[in-house]
């Protein structure tokens, strides 16, 4: 269906072209071509390991300072042609090769910033209506460097926010109609193909080694900390304990009946299996140290955090520590468990629909009112247990009593499974898109001040209804209910940006912005059973086993400062610096210089530094800090 819609839109564009050609014979068409050849070479700034790079907990690989992260060569060609007096075709072709990129990111990717056919559209007019039909970008809003109303096109996050908006925005097939109601009032209607954003790591392959995988994504598909990979190893070690129990290791009690001992009981016990070995040592040995021949599984994932003295369920940083209240009977349900990752996207019969009203108040107070009914381009993940035949399994819970502490226990079961021959439960990760309503407004204006001279003020506001945000139920996760413990739930969001521009000194432009995100359905319910209890909205970008599945902020603030100044006798150079700070101590600083050596030869240099709290949106990319050098030949 997606192909059908794309083809339909393409056919519409071609039809317009054909009619135009028929009307004019194409004899008067004037074609213009331009473009550039570009090389961009990126190097890691410092020695380290990017998120999700290591394939196992015991792996020690690092990239070196100065090691290449990018060697991208591209040929970009623009072409424009007048078909008839009122129809003009524009196209952009991209041929890209990045030999330092990981598989899947080295060349052409449909609907990405490396799409071979980036744009192809026709501008025409039907009466008073301006039409743009075809594959294109459309931008709403007034904010700098942040996308609130700029949501019609999805985004390619392959370099997070380092790429220019023009490059990172993913063009989609679209019909846009602008009507000038009055000289000041403009109505815009948009019918656009729905397409998802490209988020490194958020796919069935996991993109191991990609430099810009967020911790939140690593928690899903990461080789060490992603539940996609953790669960099968949990299934393997569950099988080990199942076999131990079947062999009489727990006094002849089968695993599915051990609802009186939790992971924490076992790990903190001095001799849980009567063999003189501490529980922590046993757990560590079975998960890491012992090969299969010795009953271990030599796990690669973060089941336990290594060592025999690191067990601390009050400060969890490994899977079993988060599941410290899970009974051994619960692990019976996980025996031989597998995972699968699929996409379940809606048909494209319902496109994204948008409406914008834009006008001016007084002399120059420009404002817009915007509405978009669309699929949120940022996918979300649903988890569901499935049986051997693909049937959905509904976990059940049963109560018990902890023989060690006397507290009640909760055991999770998958009815009909649990070590039964031929029964393999699969935790299915389903990538989905959610249809939401986005309503917003933007304005910009300028005014004169005595002390600062002319000032431009701008703002952007966005209310989004029924977005999906992660809610972590640590109580459920604690007793082993993975699906109930990590859910995407609906929440309304309100976001806004306030910004202003000033000019200082000579040619120095200064822009400051204040940004706030408010989760209107924020969840924060305290638990009564230590760290592994309670329920809260998690930070989607950074929640991770290493940071206590980080709680999100009800009110989240950012500030940005942008400085820009030309240099050189002909101002052939420009130096820019942007700093973005998060309220919880994460920072991104980008310093860049562009210099035109000749009319056709432009060089660039940029330094991207991520620093501060490594559990923040920007700070998490500390090890991805980089230097990039570029050269562009225009033609």
């Amino acid at each position, binding site marked *: 269906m997606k192909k059908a819609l794309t083809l339909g839109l393409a056919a519409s564009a071609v039809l317009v072209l054909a009619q135009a050609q028929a009307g004019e014979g194409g004899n008067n068409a004037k074609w213009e071509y*331009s473009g550039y050849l570009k090389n961009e070479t990126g190097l890691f700034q410092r020695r380290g390991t990017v998120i999700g790079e290591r394939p196992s907990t015991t792996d020690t690989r690092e990239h070196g300072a100065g090691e290449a992260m990018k060697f991208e060569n591209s040929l970009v060609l*623009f072409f*424009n042609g007048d078909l008839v007096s009122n129809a*003009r075709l524009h196209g952009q072709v991209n041929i890209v090769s990045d030999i330092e990129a990981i598989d899947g990111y080295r060349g052409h990717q449909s609907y990405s910033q490396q799409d071979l056919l980036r744009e192809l559209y026709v*501008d025409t007019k039907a009466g008073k209506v*301006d039409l743009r039909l075809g594959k294109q*970008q459309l*931008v709403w*809003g*007034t904010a*700098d*460097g942040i996308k609130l109303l*700029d949501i019609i096109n999805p985004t390619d996050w392959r370099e997070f926010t380092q790429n*220019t*908006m*023009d490059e990172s*925005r993913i063009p989609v097939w679209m019909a846009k109609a*602008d009507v*000038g109601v009055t*000289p000041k009032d*403009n109505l815009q209607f948009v019918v656009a193909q729905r397409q998802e954003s490209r988020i490194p790591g958020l796919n069935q392959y996991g993109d191991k080694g990609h430099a810009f995988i967020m911790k939140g994504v690593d928690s899903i598909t990461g080789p060490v900390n992603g539940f996609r990979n953790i669960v099968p190893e949990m299934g393997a070690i569950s099988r080990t304990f199942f076999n131990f129990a079947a062999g009489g290791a727990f006094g002849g009690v089968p695993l599915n009946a051990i609802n009186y001992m939790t992971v924490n009981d076992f790990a903190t016990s001095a001799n849980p299996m009567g063999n003189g070995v501490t529980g922590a040592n046993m757990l560590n040995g079975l998960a890491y140290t012992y090969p299969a021949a010795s009953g271990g599984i030599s796990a690669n994932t973060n089941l336990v955090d290594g060592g025999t003295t690191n067990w601390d369920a009050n400060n969890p940083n490994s899977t079993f520590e988060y599941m410290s209240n899970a009974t051994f009977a619960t692990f019976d349900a996980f025996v031989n468990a597998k995972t699968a990752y699929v996409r379940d996207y809606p048909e494209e019969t319902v496109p994204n629909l948008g409406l914008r009203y834009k006008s001016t108040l007084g*002399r*120059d107070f*420009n404002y817009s009112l915007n509405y978009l009914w669309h699929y949120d381009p940022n996918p979300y993940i649903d988890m569901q247990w499935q049986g051997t035949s693909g049937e959905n399994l509904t976990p059940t819970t049963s109560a018990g009593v902890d023989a060690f502490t006397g507290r009640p226990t909760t055991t999770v079961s998958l009815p009909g499974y649990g070590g039964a021959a031929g029964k393999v439960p699969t935790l299915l990760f389903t990538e989905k898109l959610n249809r939401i309503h986005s309503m917003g407004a933007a304005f*910009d204006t*300028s005014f*004169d001040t005595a002390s600062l*001279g*002319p*000032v*431009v003020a*701008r703002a952007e506001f966005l209310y989004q209804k029924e977005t999906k945000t992660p809610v972590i139920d640590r109580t459920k996760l604690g007793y082993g209910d993975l699906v109930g413990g990590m859910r995407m739930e609906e929440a309304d969001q309100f976001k806004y940006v306030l910004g202003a*521009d*000033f*000019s200082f000194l*000579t*040619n120095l*432009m200064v*822009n400051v912005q204040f940004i706030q995100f408010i989760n209107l359905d924020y969840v924060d319910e305290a638990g009564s059973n230590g760290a592994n209890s309670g329920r809260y909205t998690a930070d989607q970008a950074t929640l991770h086993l290493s940071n206590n599945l980080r709680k999100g902020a009800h009110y989240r603030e950012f500030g940005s400062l*942008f400085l*820009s*100044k*030309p240099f*050189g*006798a*002909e*101002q*052939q150079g*420009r130096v*820019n610096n*942007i700093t973005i700070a998060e309220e919880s101590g994460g920072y991104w600083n980008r310093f*860049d210089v*562009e210099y*035109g050596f*000749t*009319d*056709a030869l*432009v060089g660039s240099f940029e330094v991207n530094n991520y620093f501060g709290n490594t559990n923040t949106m920007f700070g998490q990319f500390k090890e991805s800090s980089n230097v990039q050098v570029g050269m*562009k030949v*225009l033609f």
Partner: protein
Amino acid sequence: MNRKSLSLAVGLMLASLSAWADNVPRSLPYPGGAPSADEIARQVYFVNHFYAVKNFSIERGQSGSITVIASRSAGEEPLTNTVERYLNNEYSDGETKAKDLAIFRSGKLNGTGMLIVDFVDDAKSQAYSIWLPALRKIRRFAQPAFDDAWGGTDFTFEDVTLRKPHHESHELQGKESFNECLMAMEIPAAQASGNLANLHKPACNHKGREVYKLKSTTKFQNWWYDYRISYVDTQSFADYRTEFFKDNKKIKIIDRDWAPLGLSDPRALKWRYWYGKNLVSNHETMASIPDDVVQYDTAKDESLWSEQTLSKINR
């Protein structure tokens, strides 16, 4: 937030808004008798704003010719940009004085567009809306500082657009004959290709014209110049040359080659080129406008001067 080329884009605007006087109306009559220094300044402002016509544009010629802006340091090869520009003076809403649209067509600025709105209220700063290809959106910018360099050229924003008559006091120093050719950028034969192939040669057709010698002294403190001398045609009020002085030393010259549009009003003129030279650094700038790119009093729809036009610019 990529605005690497912003200043250049703003700076290379071939603005006609080289303000000389307070709120000069389009209806300003041609002066009778001997005009005062202030009146001459107002007439020069009228000429520079093309108030004799409803709209004025420098477009792409049928032959593909286009306005070229070239800048170079002493001994270096010039850097160039090409531009189209559309000026509209016909507003009657009581708020808008003029709108100026520029679209850059080459180099790293290719596809950048700018819409400047000048208001009737002289105290109100101009509004700058710029289409930035790197963002694919229109962004508002604050009016630049008066002494900001105009995109690497030898013109400041004050020279080009921001100077108002009340920023200076004017003194008429008499009449004289303008007996020199205007200066122009000389391009060595080896470099005379592409955008540099057809720059105008030094104009000598104004030699012998009678001009007013107008001294204008800035009212700004510690400014980059103390005063300037302008040579203004006594009939058309074309300002052929302006010399800038600091500490009684000549520091900069701007020459403008004008040609008549052929209308009844002698003040209806078009530019052929601007030339500027910094006499301290020997840096030069030239904006060369081919004759066949000039259009005026066309039936262009007012909607051309809108953000909608900016958003339709393609690279």
